[in-house]
């Protein structure tokens, strides 16, 4: 009987054919699909190996129900098709974080044929902790000892056979970055399927006290048939003893729960430590023992080069200046390279608009034409134009991550972040927010704690992003004398940061109250990022942005276009008006205009009139649109931020205070649609995106209100 295995993507498409069978039957080795789960510590080079094995044949999705990225790919070897799933990098498989639970569940639920654990052999003992847990799970295991080049250089020698015996797994030395040993790795994978090893539950011994309690619990598991079969009763008993949240949540008989509680109490009393600590210590004991026998040379391999670099980068005096320079460099580069590309795309879209317009006879009014040119091209184009900048920011983030510098940045900044109630890892995403909120929000993935992550995501838009720049550039010279320009600009950024800190603190004290997760974080050794790795990283994220933001944005752009174009005033109303004036009237007549007018009493306390209100509605799509909308409102037709006439118009119509309030409102209020969409994606629900939208808008209203009212009082 032939057996097939399927891999389901998040779209529910099945690759391969057939149905998954439980348990093992005699396998027909010809033409078989092998499902491989690739696990490993963060920074073990797992992704590099995955990329090397799958190349372009990979795609990114999501694990169902959680905001954890799922990468799948495939390759073929010796006539077999191998489906690889890159599990999230984890230090262990206890239910500590979502990633760990996801990884564990995948191995158990998805009938993985082989688990490959990528082990950083220059960091052996800690990396073997995960391997030990995989051994406990009794899955067919292959250990890939990565970075053997570093290990060889140090003169450390592994007795592969002995280690293989200890861990009951095939061990293959590889160098992922150079592509060495990958063929042998694939061989090992296929061999493990074709000639499976004998399973041995008792590879790791947890000490007499714990073993005794395990023996007490195991018989009680007989009532939990399905779970026991799935996981193995020893493993299940162990997890219960460890008080594993995920397993406990699966529901058990009261008798079992009581017995476990008793055992836990007993162990804690006798040894002074909770069982989970005992077990963790035992695992390391097992590893120590194995290494003592099979590894020659001290296991304390020092990463000399990395340490030297850290002496400079984490130097008490130099660290922060270096950090500042690096960050400045990143932004400068992004905009230096990005702006010309932006210009290119802008021209491209202009050409496209002109071309489409040209398809209709000159002057002809057509709904479809307007829809395409103003709605679709205008709206979506306005977002696509930012893609070069976004891609460059992702590129920079990828380099920082892969090189290991990100962790250092978090290390340096944690003190400040902790005071706000956040984690050092929040700093870089917030910093990126000054460029664009989208990559910034996507960058919050590194935060393990959901509360920290949500808080960071919600306040990121307060970091004055690049799109608000045109607004400042338009308004500041209009209302303030030259000598104040720099100061006011700087003030906007500072206000944004201050509000972000305030909001973060507030959120942490109210909605996201709770103990901060431990900071405990590895400072991985520095590595030179591979170009391929960085590009794949960057492309994956950018494509996600385009796909998700693009599709939803299309819809919203069309809606907004409709709102600003319809209903149209009839011919009579427009008679005798110039083209620009006609535009203004049409705008006023449209839904957006009417809403703007209706809103006027609401925005008056802020110092706004209907014109500003209308423009703000248009700006919902993307902040830059505000400028264009203002132009239309003032009958100036096409305008951009350097339009002097628009400035003059504004100056004559509003006071400096009002001008400042406009900028303030734009700074704080809800971010562009793209941000909201990405927010939904990263938080997993529209609720949070909505909360962000309403919350920020409300905050903007409040702050502007106060500033305007108080300001008016002071000035008069």
């Amino acid at each position, binding site marked *: 009987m032939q057996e097939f295995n399927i891999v389901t993507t998040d779209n529910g498409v099945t690759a391969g054919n057939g149905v998954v069978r439980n348990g093992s039957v005699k396998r027909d080795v010809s033409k078989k699909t092998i499902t491989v789960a690739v696990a490993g510590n963060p920074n073990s080079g797992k992704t590099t190996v995955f990329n090397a094995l799958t190349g372009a044949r990979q795609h990114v999705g999501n694990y169902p129900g959680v905001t954890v990225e799922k990468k799948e790919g495939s390759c073929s070897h010796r006539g077999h098709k191998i489906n690889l799933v890159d599990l999230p990098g984890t230090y262990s498989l206890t239910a500590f974080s979502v990633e760990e639970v996801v990884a564990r569940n995948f191995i158990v639920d998805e009938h993985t044929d082989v688990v490959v654990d990528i082990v950083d052999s220059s*960091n052996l003992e800690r990396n073997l902790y995960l391997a030990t847990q995989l051994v406990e799970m009794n899955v067919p295991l292959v250990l890939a000892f990565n970075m053997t080049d570093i290990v060889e250089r140090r003169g450390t020698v592994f007795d592969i056979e002995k280690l293989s015996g200890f861990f009951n797994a095939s061990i293959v030395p590889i160098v992922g970055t150079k592509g060495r040993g990958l063929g042998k790795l694939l061989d090992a994978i296929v061999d493990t399927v074709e000639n499976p090893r004998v399973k041995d539950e008792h590879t790791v011994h947890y000490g007499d006290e714990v073993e005794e309690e395990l023996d007490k619990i195991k018989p009680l598991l007989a009532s939990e048939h399905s779970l026991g079969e799935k996981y193995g009763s020893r493993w299940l008993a162990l997890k219960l003893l460890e008080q594993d949240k995920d397993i406990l949540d699966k529901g058990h008989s009261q008798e079992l729960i009581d017995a476990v509680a008793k055992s836990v109490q007993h162990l804690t009393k006798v040894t002074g430590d909770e069982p989970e600590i005992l077990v963790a210590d035992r695992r390391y004991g097992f590893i120590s023992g194995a290494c003592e026998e099979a590894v020659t040379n001290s296991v304390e391999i020092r990463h000399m080069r990395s340490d030297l670099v850290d002496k400079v980068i984490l130097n008490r005096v130099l660290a922060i200046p270096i950090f500042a320079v690096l960050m400045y460099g990143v932004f400068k580069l992004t905009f230096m390279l990005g702006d010309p590309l932006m210009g290119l795309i802008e021209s491209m879209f202009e050409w496209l608009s002109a071309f489409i317009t040209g398809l209709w006879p000159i002057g002809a009014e057509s709904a479809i034409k307007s829809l395409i040119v103003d709605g679709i091209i205008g709206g979506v184009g306005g977002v696509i134009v930012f893609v070069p900048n976004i891609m460059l920011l992702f590129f920079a983030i990828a380099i920082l991550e892969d090189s290991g510098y990100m962790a250092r940045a978090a290390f340096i900044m944690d003190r400040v972040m902790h005071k706000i109630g956040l984690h050092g890892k929040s700093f870089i995403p917030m910093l990126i927010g000054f460029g664009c909120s989208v990559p910034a929000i996507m960058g919050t993935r590194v935060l393990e704690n959901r509360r920290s992550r949500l808080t960071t995501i919600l306040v990121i838009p307060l970091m004055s992003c690049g799109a608000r720049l045109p607004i400042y550039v338009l308004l500041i010279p209009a209302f303030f004398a030259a000598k104040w320009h720099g100061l006011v600009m700087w003030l906007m950024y500072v206000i944004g940061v201050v509000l972000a800190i305030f909001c973060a603190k507030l959120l942490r004290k109210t909605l996201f109250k709770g103990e901060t997760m*431990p900071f405990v974080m*590895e400072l991985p050794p520095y590595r030179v990022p591979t170009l391929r790795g960085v590009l794949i990283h960057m492309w994956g994220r950018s494509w996600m942005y385009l796909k998700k933001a693009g599709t939803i944005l299309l819809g919203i752009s069309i809606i907004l276009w409709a709102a600003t174009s319809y209903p149209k005033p009839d011919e009579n109303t427009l008679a005798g008006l110039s083209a620009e004036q006609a535009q203004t009237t049409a705008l006023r007549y449209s839904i957006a205009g009417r809403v703007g007018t209706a809103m006027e009493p609401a925005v008056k306390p802020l110092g706004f009139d209907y014109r500003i209100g209308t423009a703000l509605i248009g700006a919902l799509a993307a902040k830059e649109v505000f400028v264009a909308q203002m132009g239309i409102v003032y009958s100036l037709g096409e305008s951009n931020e350097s339009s002097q006439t628009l400035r003059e118009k504004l100056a004559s119509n509003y006071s400096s205070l009002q001008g400042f309030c406009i900028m303030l409102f734009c700074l704080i209020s809800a971010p562009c649609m793209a941000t909201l969409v990405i927010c939904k994606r990263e938080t997993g629900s529209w609720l949070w995106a909505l909360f962000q939208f309403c919350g920020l808008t409300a905050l903007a209203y409040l702050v502007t209100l106060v500033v305007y009212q108080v300001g008016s009082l002071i000035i008069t």
Partner: protein
Amino acid sequence: MMVRAENLSASLEDYLEAIFWIAQSKGAARAKDIAKRLQVKASSVTGALHALGEKKYVNYAPYDVITLTSEGLKVAKKVVRRHQILKDFFAEVLAVDADIADEGACKLEHSIPRPIVERLVEFMEFVEVCPRGGKDWIKGFIDQCKAKTKQKCEKCMNSCLKNFRKGKQLILNEENITTVADLKPRQKGVVVRINRRGAIAKRLAEMGVGRGALVEFERVAPLGDPIDIKVKGYHLSLRKSEAADIVITHM
């Protein structure tokens, strides 16, 4: 406390010792008993008794029993004690046979300089009490002597390490107990326990910071927090508040 005896000659000390032991069993000593015990001529005994009498260590009257004065008793006891300690050292620490130990004690107690003897006595007491040594240690030595072949020190050390890691061994000197947060750069320590319960303790244990792990303090972040430590061959960063819960013995 150690009473510094006057500079009694070696032989006079022997006499005091002999009188002491005879008096122990018989109540008082007779000259001939002393002569027999020390294997000397009666005339020598007389001479010694004179000298001891002068020093007021013995009550001596011709043809009478000899007893020790209270002073004499004190000194005798001291001499006896010293002898006993040396004998114990030879018999119990160096593990030689009892009679050879006695012979050695007799010879040694007079010929080696006092300070050495006194220091040896102190050492004996130290070995008894110090947990680093103690009975196990001596036993190890005895086994070594008996075995005649050089034992593999490695094996023994491994089992000691295992025991130590299990926390069964007493903690070294109280002064060395501190926390990771109190270490200075380049200082090392061995983890004794983690004071917290729950997520942090578990996370630390999983990252390799468990009982018996060697940690080395590397640096502090520029703003004063967090800190960077080396454990199991890699760098781990922690907040000071987390580090303060990791109790170590400083090395």
